[in-house]
């Protein structure tokens, strides 16, 4: 049996101004750390697989930490003073399925 299952999340980050990838990455890790601590973040195995300037992002996370990540994403409302809303488009067990289902324009792209 697989012990470490991964879940992939497709996100859409909507900003009042320009979307800053680094700020989003920093803010998400800070929020997660604040809520669940270093031990929690280490268990989550959080990875940023794609972070586009258009606000679309793909993250991977341990399946047990998925609800925690969704809570952390929900609490992000500001990135360096820019009002922000993070919208989870969908969750899947494989990147291929995630792209086909939630980011259909991405299918076939590397």
């Amino acid at each position: 049996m697989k012990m470490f299952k991964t879940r992939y999340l497709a996100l859409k980050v909507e900003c009042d101004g320009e979307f800053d990838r680094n700020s989003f990455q920093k803010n998400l890790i800070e929020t997660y750390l604040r809520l669940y601590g270093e031990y929690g973040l280490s268990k989550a195995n959080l990875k940023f697989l794609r972070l586009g300037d258009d606000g679309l992002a793909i993250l991977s996370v341990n399946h047990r930490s998925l609800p925690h990540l969704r809570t952390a994403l929900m609490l992000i409302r500001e990135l360096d003073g820019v009002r922000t809303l993070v919208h989870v488009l969908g969750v899947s067990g494989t990147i291929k399925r995630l792209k086909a289902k939630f980011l259909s324009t991405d299918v076939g792209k590397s």
Partner: protein
Amino acid sequence: MLSMARKLGFSVVGLTLEDIDMKPLEVKPPENLKVVWRIDLTHDKTQPKTIDKLRKLFSIIAVSCSSRDEFRAVLKTRTDLIFQKKLFAFNLSDVRVLASSGKFFELNFKPLIYARGFEMVNTIKVLRRNVELLRKMKIPIIISSWASNTYEVTPPLELPQFLILADVNVQEFYRCVSEEPARLLELSTSKRMGLPNGVRIFRRECV
């Protein structure tokens, strides 16, 4: 804000007024989005006459409470929904009385967005305690975002996610953003028609 709500998948949105002298405004919601108006009262403005007058204008009558004394006082009123303006911990007897009153309780996660440090710790502590008691007594809960601008609107299926901080199974709470609000609207509509509790109109036929 309404177009963002539609985009995020809402089918019904409640807009709130706090001034009892104001009337619901004319708004043009986007297609497939229904807007209902709600009035938020304070505990000292919940006289039966006021509520009767407001029920004709508003779909939902909510009342806020900031302390346990206020909470006890508003349980005796004829409002539909109770919410906490300032978070405070319930005890079992409070929740028992709430269960017998048949009112809905509103949970919102806005305090969690802005709380930091020790304030956050306290907020989560109170939230965990309250959610546990509300679940135990099977109180109908409604989860809302209390959004005051476009970037505070949260997708409906994301709304119950903050309850993971209260160590509960989030799946159980999806009904708090779908079935329970619909039931609240149905109940308040029957109250507006003057129907007694338990009586519903399923169909109208012109003779």
